[in-house]
């Protein structure tokens, strides 16, 4: 088990080394967008909306924006990034000639995707603090834990999709038809109660809605029911997701 984790960490390190050398461009891409949204929508729409559930609009969307930042970063890494390494550059094939196995590579990729998510959402948290939009300091460890768990679940899900992807063009559909609805209908920009129940329940089958619920609870309190279900969802979906991603990548690579 320890050796398994060490081997997965070697894959993580490989990605980290590459990231280090181009990190400014990466950071700008991953974090620029959520910041634009936070201020564009939060401050702009905030003039119209004023308050949601007793807090300012920009404060209302802040926890969801963190989840959105984590989601985008993890999904980008485990789609375009992972596909390039797996199929285009044959990095996996090269690594498979070393003691690392497909399971090790997949776990390393998922942990790396989660790391990217944690970096993006962490930077957003720093910005929130800097602008005085955050005060639940005691919850920071749990918030980061939530983002890490969400990053892992999201990375496993997107890596599974990547293993099934015919080519890069497919990712355009994936981002438009899957990730955009995840941004719009998981309670990030408006309370999910405004959606028809049946419609929202579709989104509860994926990690994003749960990550948003947990984060909002940690930011602002409220009912613990949905966040607890969310924690259970993460606990179950993470091992299942890692298992499924390994299986699909193996199927893709080994004829």
């Amino acid at each position: 088990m320890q050796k398994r984790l060490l081997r997965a960490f070697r894959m993580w390190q490989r990605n980290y080394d590459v990231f280090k050398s181009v990190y400014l461009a990466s950071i700008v891409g991953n974090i620029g967008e959520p910041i634009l949204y936070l201020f564009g929508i939060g401050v702009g729409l905030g003039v119209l909306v004023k308050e949601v559930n007793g807090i300012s609009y920009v404060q209302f969307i802040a926890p969801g924006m963190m989840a959105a930042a984590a989601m985008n970063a993890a999904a980008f890494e485990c789609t375009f990034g992972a596909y390039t390494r797996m199929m285009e550059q044959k990095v996996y094939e090269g690594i498979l000639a070393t003691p690392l196995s497909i399971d090790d590579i997949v776990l390393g990729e998922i942990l790396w995707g989660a790391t990217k998510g944690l970096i993006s959402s962490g930077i957003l948290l720093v910005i929130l603090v800097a602008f005085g939009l955050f005060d639940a300091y005691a919850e920071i460890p749990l918030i980061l834990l939530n983002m890490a768990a969400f990053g892992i679940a999201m990375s496993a899900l997107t890596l599974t999709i990547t293993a099934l992807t015919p080519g890069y063009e497919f990712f355009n559909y994936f981002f438009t038809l899957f990730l955009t609805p995840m941004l719009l209908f998981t309670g990030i920009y408006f309370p999910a109660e405004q959606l028809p129940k049946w419609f929202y329940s579709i989104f509860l089958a994926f990690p994003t809605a749960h990550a948003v619920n947990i984060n909002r609870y940690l930011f602002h309190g409220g009912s613990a029911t949905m966040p607890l279900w969310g924690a259970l969802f993460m606990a179950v979906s993470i091992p299942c997701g890692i298992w499924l991603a390994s299986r699909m990548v193996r199927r893709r690579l080994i004829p």
Partner: protein
Amino acid sequence: MGVVEARQLERDFGAFRAVDGIAFNIEEGECYGFLGPNGAGKTTTVRMIQGLLPRTGGDLTVFGKDIDREPVSIKADLGVVSQENNLDRDLTVRQNLLTYARYFDIEPEVAQSRADELLKFLHLDGKKGDKLSAISGGMQRRLAIARALINGPRLMLLDEPTTGLDPQARHMIWARLRSLKKQKITMILTTHYMEEAERLCDRVAIMNGGKILMEGKPSELVKDVIGEEVIELNLGDENRQAALNRVRALGAAYEMHGDTVYIYNGRHEMLSALVGIGHRSVLHRKATLEDLFLKLAGRTLVD
């Protein structure tokens, strides 16, 4: 006990049998070649040995262990140069070696000195910080060899190490591989260059259609099947039949490929009998693996 032992080794892709019941036994310190045209099953065989492809049937042991059961410990002592380069394009030349060393859990200080040693050995020390896109195909191939050596492997798998390289680059790689041979590293090499097999391999297996047609020392195989020497006659288009009749009258084994006749075991005296036969050129030379290759499978084997 052999370093690699295979019996009745098979690999199917769907209904297609790419490797069809082959057997071989590779000894410590030898250089063993799989020789054959495209599609013969060489890469599939190498990928099974490195544990990348599970076999469909038969037995395969590496260092006495079943590769499908104990891949981690076996791969720790393996060095692989794949047919298609899979160097890490996001890393520089030296980083490729250091990152690879980490997969083998080699201490950073050891990895650094080993990487510099290997870069020198493969004449890449001037390119340490270069991106892969900035170095030539021959250099990338040498880097792939350096990378495969980073863990000090007991067994190296080289899948067409020089295909597509210019002659100078090829000779440079041959020289490096010969010096690895002197260090008693066991090597498995695939190639479709007869010259490469002849220069490097102690034994070769000639493959076609997923089967091993023949196995042995290159020189002995050639001697047994072809003889010591060959007369190569390039015939003109006219009077070809008449010329062939005169060749037949020699009583020696011969074969025709394109417009060239190969007379096996061609002795010097025969040359005088061929005077005025109407050939474009004649060559009396030592028999090579290429002759054997042509003869073994005739036209069908050559792609």
